[in-house]
């Protein structure tokens, strides 16, 4: 990196960036091989800045059929945030065998349609959770596990833990308990299936509709907001 580039990499004089400097997200100037000067704004250049789009359901019958298929093929993105993460693996054991309900684990948000928040959610984790949630393709569903996601549970007065998950993303099913057992989980999945089949699980579209509201909530609690508003 040339001397000049370094110089130009100094943070912008905005309050935000001064507070949470993250070098690779700051604007920088580089020179093309031909010596042309290029201004890089990583957030603009490397991330799509578009707002999310609402994706309406199709015709009724078709959508119903598809919803049935979706409900019978729940691919989980397990986000092991809290103690709930220990309750997920038993689902695949012979005792509970969630496979028979069409439930399977997927390792990547892109291929999952159920997002499980398994327990208390610290603010730091929330950012990652939002990013993962936004990266899942429509339609997507959120299952919140345990009391902590409902009202903060035993962490209700913690300085770094959120109290209500649905302030930050639309939740389809809450499963109460501290911690809920796998049976409760399966019950929760059944509830979710029911919701999907009824066509009520349009959380993704709700998120789009109330996007500004959600974002405001998110940004209010996440101080070092250094990503685009919507993570495609």
């Amino acid at each position, binding site marked *: 990196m040339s001397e000049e580039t370094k110089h130009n990499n100094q943070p912008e004089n905005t309050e935000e960036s001064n507070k949470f400097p993250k070098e690779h997200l700051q604007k920088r100037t580089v020179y093309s091989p031909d010596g042309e000067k290029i201004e890089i704004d990583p957030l603009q250049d490397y991330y799509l800045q578009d707002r999310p789009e609402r994706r309406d359901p199709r015709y009724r019958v078709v959508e119903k059929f598809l919803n049935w*298929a*979706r409900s019978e093929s729940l691919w989980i993105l397990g986000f092991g945030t809290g103690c709930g993460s220990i309750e997920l693996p038993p689902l695949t*054991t*012979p005792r509970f*065998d969630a*496979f028979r309900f*069409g439930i399977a684990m997927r390792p990547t948000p892109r291929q999952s*349609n159920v997002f499980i928040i398994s327990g208390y959610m610290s603010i730091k984790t929330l950012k990652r959770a939002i990013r993962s949630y936004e990266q899942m*393709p*429509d339609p997507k569903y959120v299952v919140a596990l345990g009391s902590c996601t409902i009202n903060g549970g035993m962490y209700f007065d913690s300085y770094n833990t959120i109290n209500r998950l649905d302030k930050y993303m639309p939740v389809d099913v809450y499963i109460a308990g501290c911690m809920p057992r796998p049976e409760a989980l399966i019950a929760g999945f059944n509830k979710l299936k029911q919701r999907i089949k009824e066509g009520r699980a349009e959380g993704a579209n709700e998120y789009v509709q109330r996007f500004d509201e959600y974002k405001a909530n998110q940004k209010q609690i996440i101080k070092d907001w250094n990503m685009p508003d919507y993570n495609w």
Partner: protein
Amino acid sequence: MENIAAKLLWTFLGLLIVLNWGMLKTSIVRKIVARVGGRYGIRWYQPWINLIKLYGTRGQLSHGVMFYLGPVFRIAGGVGLFLFMPLIFGDPRWSNFAFAGDLILLLYFKFFGMLGMALGAGEGGHPYSAIGVSRGLSQYTTVEIPFTLGIIALAVQYDTLSLTEMVAAQQGGIANWTIVTNPIASAALLFSMLGIFMHAPFDLVKAPNEIPIGPPTEYHGSYLGVLRTNAAIMHITEAVLFMNLLFGGANNWIELIIKTFLIYFITVFIGVVFPRFRIEQSVRFFLGVPLILGILAIILIM
């Protein structure tokens, strides 16, 4: 013209059968594995549901043209392989387009899908995709050696490169099957089959947990649907290839279904028994015993 239309129709029918048989085979295998583990296992129609769900995904993202075309290449490779593969011996309706090329064509056409897929995954830009591709290609290079040695041995044995003629030569009872007449070449081919199906212990390419399912990390929705469709077709087609090479081909669909299932089940069986190889281990493995078997097969026919 009628001829072509009929041909297309039969081929399409064959494709449908193979596709659905591939789906069914998946669920049967999963079920068997689950039962071995004491579980109930997935429902038999689960693969179709998954497929419908994937095709019904609402929002799709694309990283670029090549990303979009990757699955198309992949499935073109799979379906193409199917098209050039004679299915049922002695029945021109089910011999597909095998008249366009011989075994060598099949050997090389497999790469069409692989390369396209690798490129599509590459444009996805996910580092894990690249790692997966790198592992896949690395493993594949060595898998192909015993495979080629075996194929050459068979080509010499039957003095032809035409798959149809090879099947023809194996007619007349189990005693005429290659697996009996040329056990060493068959062993080499079966070893390489393990690598071709990429089941455990050779499934590091997909490595579901460390590099989320390898190359298709970024693929979702219809893309994934296309890939899964292809997987169903591919597995059966490849099994048909081995069936034609080693197990006397098939005279009717029932025979084909049974044989392909058994062939596929070999790999499943081995897969549940053995743990996973690291990539350099699998590369070395295929340069070990399978290679020696292959060379032995060649030496025996020389």
